[in-house]
């Protein structure tokens, strides 16, 4: 596709449920980033991949959060045993080689935990 695609756009989960959020980056983009954006705040870094290698996961808030990009293209962010504080918009971004983190963003997945 022409841009970064994320699915689903909206997800409502009951507390304790596991969720999986998908990101299709722009074709050929080496770098992929996940961010979390709470209501009324700027996005906060979660994790970064270069191809299939997860080079930085320092922003993941707990061990309930897990991300993968097994073939270096599509990525999945998984949240286990969701809690209310996990409610946020989860943004995926990708960038080509050499462009650093000035990336192209998807529209995000709005997760609401009830």
């Amino acid at each position, binding site marked *: 596709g022409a841009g970064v695609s994320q699915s689903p756009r909206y997800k409502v989960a009951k507390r304790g449920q596991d969720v999986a959020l998908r990101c299709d980056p722009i074709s050929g983009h080496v770098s992929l980033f996940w961010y979390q954006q709470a209501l009324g705040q*700027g*996005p906060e870094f979660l994790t970064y991949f270069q191809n299939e290698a997860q080079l*930085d996961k320092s922003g993941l808030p707990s061990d309930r959060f897990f991300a993968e990009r097994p073939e270096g293209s599509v990525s999945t962010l998984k949240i286990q045993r969701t809690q209310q504080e996990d409610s946020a918009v989860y943004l995926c971004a990708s960038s080509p080689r050499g462009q650093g*983190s*000035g990336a192209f963003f998807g*529209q995000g997945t709005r997760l609401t935990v009830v």
Partner: protein
Amino acid sequence: AQSVSQHNHHVILSEAASLELGCNYSYGGTVNLFWYVQYPGQHLQLLLKYFSGDPLVKGIKGFEAEFIKSKFSFNLRKPSVQWSDTAEYFCAGDGEAGNMLTFGGGTRLMVKP
């Protein structure tokens, strides 16, 4: 620790007014700076970026920003805003590694017709 701050949370302007949104950063070493815009219901879009060179950077839609190292600032400007500029604006930075963006809290701009 690296940080980016935006002091104006909400700005209301009339059409044709001039715009300046403040952004300050705190980084050790090399810094790359960005401004993103998010129109209602849409994804974040890159307005402009500064890596090095000329500190006055021109972006899309008539926006520009000036990197002032002595003031640790990267303010966004537009000489004459339009109603269609109503959006949320985010300043962001990353370091030499270029592997993560640190965002400011955002500024909501409303332009009254």
